């Protein structure tokens, strides 16, 4: 994949392995291959959806981009700078431009801090606003996420899940970032509240020209919010393309199976669909299968799939797929 100018973020050959230690002298006996050599870019102003089942490495990818978890190898270019090479003050400086919204609005807000302290903290830490102006700025941020500015002195437990997630969004916006990683921002919320938060994220994106990496396992929501979509399985990207390409013309057997497994809230459309039901579970990332990691559950796997890892290749403009037999579905 080549870098181009409209890419805000460019991830190349990213590996994140978690070592496993055993025994008295804590010798390393193996590693969890959480992210195993992925490359992709995120263009300015777009939303890239990153989908996969649990254990596919999508959240680890998000954390590795922000350097919250240092990658084992590979590079993460943000706005032309390789974040992996940065340390200390330089990295902190870059972090202003990239923020994260977390999955669990109950765990990601400090219960002993008021909303004002939570949303104002990034402003203090990065010393970007005069102390007496912080309150004004926080109130403005609360208004942006459609919360009452008067909530500034309340504590997280006084809010519902949807409101807490808005506080998380306000905190992420505080430093006026250009890039936000949304790590399953709605999966802990009730159905009727999910739409509120998603609509807010979309509005803010338009207002501030934000770039999103939207990590989720809900394929319907990813289709709704994303411009392009990357599908991960066991630490690798299986397919990456425009939203409509992925959903209407999926070329990887895993994407096809994944899409066919999503229930549609419409009994007539649902009964007309062809279902591919995958056998078995996701293998352990400690010992991923040789060659293509999907081959153990793949309906069209051949001998070659066990021998070598299929290249992540551009099969048609903008449509990348890691499968030897993707041409079958063209």
């Amino acid at each position, binding site marked *: 994949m080549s870098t181009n100018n409209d890419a805000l973020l460019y991830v190349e050959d990213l590996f994140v392995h978690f070592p496993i230690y055993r025994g008295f002298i804590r010798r390393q006996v193996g590693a969890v291959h959480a992210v195993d050599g992925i490359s992709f870019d995120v263009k300015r102003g777009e939303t890239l959806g990153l989908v996969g089942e649990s254990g596919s490495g999508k959240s680890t990818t998000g954390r590795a981009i922000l350097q919250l978890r240092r990658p084992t190898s590979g590079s993460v270019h943000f706005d032309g700078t390789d974040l992996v090479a940065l340390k200390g003050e330089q990295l902190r400086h870059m972090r202003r431009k990239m923020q994260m919204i977390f999955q669990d609005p109950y765990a990601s807000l400090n219960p002993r801090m008021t909303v004002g302290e939570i949303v104002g903290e990034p402003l203090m830490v990065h010393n970007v606003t005069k102390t007496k102006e912080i309150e004004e700025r926080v109130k403005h941020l609360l208004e942006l996420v459609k919360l009452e500015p008067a909530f500034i002195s309340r504590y997280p437990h006084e809010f519902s899940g949807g409101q807490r997630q808005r506080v998380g969004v306000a905190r992420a916006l505080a430093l006026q970032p250009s890039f936000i990683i949304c790590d399953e921002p709605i999966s802990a919320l009730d159905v*009727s*509240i999910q739409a509120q938060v*998603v609509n807010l994220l979309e509005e803010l994106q338009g207002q501030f020209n934000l770039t999103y990496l939207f990590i989720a396992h809900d394929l319907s929501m990813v289709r709704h919010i994303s411009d392009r979509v990357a599908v991960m399985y066991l630490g690798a990207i299986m397919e990456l393309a425009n939203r409509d390409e992925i959903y209407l013309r999926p070329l990887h057997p895993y994407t096809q199976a994944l899409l066919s497994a999503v229930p*549609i809230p419409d009994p007539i459309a649902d009964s007309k669909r062809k279902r591919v*039901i995958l056998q078995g579970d996701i293998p352990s990332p400690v010992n991923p299968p040789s060659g293509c990691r999907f081959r153990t559950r793949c309906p069209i796997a051949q001998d070659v799939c066990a021998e070598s890892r299929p290249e992540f290749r551009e099969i048609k403009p903008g449509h990348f797929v890691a499968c030897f037999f993707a041409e079958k579905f063209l």
Partner: protein
Amino acid sequence: MPDFILDVQGLETTFRTPDGVVHAVNGVSFGLAEGETLGVVGESGCGKSVTMLSILGLIPSPPGNVKAGKAIFSKQDLLKISKEELRHIRGAQISMIFQDPMTSLNPVLTIGRQLTEPLELHLGMTKEQARTRAAELLQMVGIPNGKDRLGDYPHQFSGGMRQRVMIAMALSCSPQILIADEPTTALDVTIQAQIMDLVKRLRDELGMAIIWITHDLGVVAGLAQRVLVMYGGYIIEEASVRELYANPEHPYTISLLGSLPRVDEIEHTKLLSIEGLPPVLYQKPEACPFAPRCKWAMEHCWKENPPLLVVGPDHTSACWVDTRTGRHR
């Protein structure tokens, strides 16, 4: 009226909490026909689980209190019979599976022991017979080498496999009714598809009736024949599955369907969002519980809580407003 194998009338359940008495279920009535799959849909706190737990006598009291109602199953009222009698029905004729298979399996007992217990208790099998049957049951729910796995503990199974064990356990005494409380919510979508496929196959083979509780309107669409939508402890709409999705009548159902993105969505439309929050009812409401969030609400809605009104063949909705015209019914 068809013959119902389970007929629930006017069920009311409350919980005493430090903040006051919460009215969790406020007069719920429904029937379940033999071999039918009934979907019960609603968000957290709408009373869908409490309804089922009340029927099976699984509400801890205090703080819970099943205040009123009847639940007729094979000519007995489940809410009236003794604990002992109920225990013979639960797990044998009516069984239940839960959302989180890890917390509903006992972590310190082998799954063999957990599977054989109901067989010995309800069916009076010997240890040997029960073990053989348990191995068959594991085979039936798609766990290979069932016999060898009887000695394994729950943590040695993956999430999907644990849910299969739960299903095997629930079906071990060939129940007439299986109550499934969000059994696929904790699972990945490809595993969810496996489990739903399994349940459909077993339903066709064994002919049991199923009550499937979920917040996911998509899951119900592909599984149920009839659907109840619950909100604030009330059933607010009931219809056949095709009718409900084609012609939703209640504003809550309409909004809920509109707030869901679809995986087969072609055009990007803004999601319909329902402002506000689901209610916690410290009092039995005088008004419609959905009125504060409803776009169609009119004066009458604030004065009287609508009962379920017939709006079409086999279709009822608890709403004063005809959402098609925006006028009072």
